[in-house]
């Protein structure tokens, strides 16, 4: 990673809700074009980390750099406008807006909308046929695909994806994995995934890290032979 600034550099980040500290001094770097997966059980601080990066929660300590620029104190909408696409875990789409409106919020520039829709439509063909349908009436899997489609519409340099696989069938998870890898191949987008699904995480990511009680407990490369076992050990009951 010589010369070029990291897509995302989180250093010593500490945050939480009220007086409860949930993230404790975490360091994560995502190089341009790199995909990193954060794994860990519920309630360990993974989603809180993403919310802090996005500016929804104030960082108590530490810094967040995007493409080399410090955004630690920026409000969410200014961070989002730095070519970042954030897909939260819960209430991630506007249920009462149409599919088209949801996508259009992902890509506000009317002149690029059609072009991007064409491209995203190739990945998820059903979306183009159902632009006027209310997003809340899509099935759970379709909503997740809409969510990824909305992120892709923005042609981001960095995607923050929070537990996209939760509650999905294996076939849909497979489609999402392919879509993410294809996008990286085409645009060189970097990604930080928060996941509980080890198989999906190792398939998509280059590197992984396990978060436990707000700290990074273990990390490694996805190529490592025993990666799946090591992670499973951390996550097991």
């Amino acid at each position, binding site marked *: 990673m010589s010369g070029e600034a990291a897509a995302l550099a989180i250093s010593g980040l500490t945050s939480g809700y009220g007086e409860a500290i949930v993230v404790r001094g975490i360091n994560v770097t995502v190089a341009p074009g790199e995909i990193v997966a954060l794994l860990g059980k519920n309630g360990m601080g993974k989603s809180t980390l993403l919310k802090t990066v*996005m500016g*929804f929660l104030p960082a108590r300590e530490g810094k967040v750099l995007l493409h080399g620029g410090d955004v630690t104190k920026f*409000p*969410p*909408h200014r961070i*989002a*406008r730095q070519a970042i696409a*954030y897909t*939260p875990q819960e*209430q*991630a*789409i*506007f*249920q*009462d*807006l149409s599919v088209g*409106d949801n996508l*259009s*919020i*992902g890509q*506000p520039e009317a002149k690029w909308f059609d072009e991007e829709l064409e491209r995203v439509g190739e990945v998820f063909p059903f979306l183009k046929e159902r632009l006027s349908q209310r997003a809340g009436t899509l099935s759970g899997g379709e909503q997740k695909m809409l969510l990824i489609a*909305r992120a892709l519409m923005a042609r981001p340099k960095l995607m923050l994806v929070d537990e996209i696989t939760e509650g999905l069938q294996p076939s849909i998870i497979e489609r999402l994995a392919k879509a993410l890898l294809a996008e990286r191949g085409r645009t060189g987008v970097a990604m930080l995934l928060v996941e509980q699904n080890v198989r999906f995480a190792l398939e998509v990511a280059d590197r992984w890290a396990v978060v436990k009680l707000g700290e990074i407990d273990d990390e490694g490369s996805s190529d490592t032979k025993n990666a799946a076992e090591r992670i499973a050990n951390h996550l097991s009951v």
Partner: protein
Amino acid sequence: MGVLLLDIVTTAAILFAVASGLMIILGVMKLINFAHGAFLTIGGYAAFATTQLGWNPWLAIPFAALVGFILGLIVERVIVRPLYARPLDAILATWGLGIIIGQVITIVFGRQVQFVQSPISGAIEFLGYSYSTYRLILVALAALLAVALTALFYFTRFGLNARAVIMNEDLARGLGIDSTRVRLITFGLGAALASMAGALITPLISVDPNLGLPWLINSFMLVLVSGISIPSLIVASLILGGAQVVVSTYVSAILGGLTIVVLAAVILRIRPQGLFSG
């Protein structure tokens, strides 16, 4: 009977025009603007100033909207923005703002009752009845307003952003929508609508520094009963306005003045979420 129906429709049109500004502020900002009545008053005096300056009386409507919009922007920035996290305090602060506006108007224009030139006077034959031309024009204007608001919220970028903020403000911010700016423009717009409504009703009533007060509470009740939706507000205006006209005509004018408040309080007790939602 026909006159009664015309009365109901024109009353509903007036109520809709008066309440619409309050509704969009409540919808986007989750804030009850108790200065709404004061912005109506501002509109009334903008119309009065138009008359005094000898301008065409129709100009009163855009002029009032412009004054309301600019004042709305200033008020949002100075008073409303610090109070987002304290909704009950925001009610009080906007009420205090109403007092300030009322006193400034009193100091500038005096306390006495004034009259505004009507853009059009007299009555025309309508469906076989002779009816006030201006009131009929008001119905057309209110319909136009409903269409324009619908277009704004459903066919513009600002409208999409505003709806996104209404539905889920955090998600909207995470997708790059500057909700602070959406709120600012919304408050300006709500104030402009109130002010415009004030200019619209002044040919029917006289102008004084407390002009807006009685309208404030009725608008407030209408919006709570209707919820945040333009068609619902039209229906609520017809139901509650209709009840008011019927009670005023057949029972007593004083009880008619109570109808909207009492009916709305009862409706909200039975259906706290309003008539049309959930």
